């Protein structure tokens, strides 16, 4: 299962953090969740849409965040996003 997170609401994703089979793709306002989600979920389960992350401008804000700083975060292109959606079933969207 893949969850497309488009909102910055942590309480919407907490139910999914313990299930290692569930992956997250953060886009739109979902990118703002990244720093907090990284404290709860292993980085390999999280993908972040690169253009939306850059629009938010948060790199400079979190350049001392352990995971963000060490480049463990998977920033992905639109193409990689489509590949993810093709791989996982079902795809659920949280707005």
């Amino acid at each position: 299962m893949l969850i497309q997170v488009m909102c910055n609401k942590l309480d919407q994703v907490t139910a999914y953090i313990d299930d290692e089979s569930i992956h997250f793709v953060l886009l739109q306002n979902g990118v703002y969740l990244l720093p907090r989600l990284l404290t709860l979920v292993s980085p390999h389960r999280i993908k972040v849409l690169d253009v939306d992350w850059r629009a938010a401008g948060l790199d400079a804000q979190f350049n001392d965040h352990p995971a963000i700083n060490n480049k463990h975060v998977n920033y992905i292109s639109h193409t990689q996003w489509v590949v993810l959606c093709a791989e996982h079933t079902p795809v659920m969207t949280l707005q």
Partner: protein
Amino acid sequence: MSAYLLIISTQAPYHSSAAIDAFEAALAASNVGLQVKILLEDDGVYQCVESQQAESIFHKNTYKKLCSLPLYDIEDIYVDKASIDFRGLRITNDGKLSYSIINQDDVLLLKRASQQILVF
């Protein structure tokens, strides 16, 4: 203190139109001579992240828009400290944008002392 309109902007930029809608409302109000104060609160504090790269999604930089507010005679911009801290942001008032970071008590005073409030 004279009567003022408080415009509260609570949403992050781009992904909803709320931030730009609040900005344009502030300009229109100031344009007709109302005294306007702006408060960035909740996800609205993301608007004052200086390093936004809005061009990556073909939008216009909200931070730069906020910087233009003094040109429209809007000088009183406030940012809620609790909202900044909760989001782990390191926003300081040493960039191009001039604003006051205020604590919860002052946020409440700002709202209570206003004549009219619009929330976006």
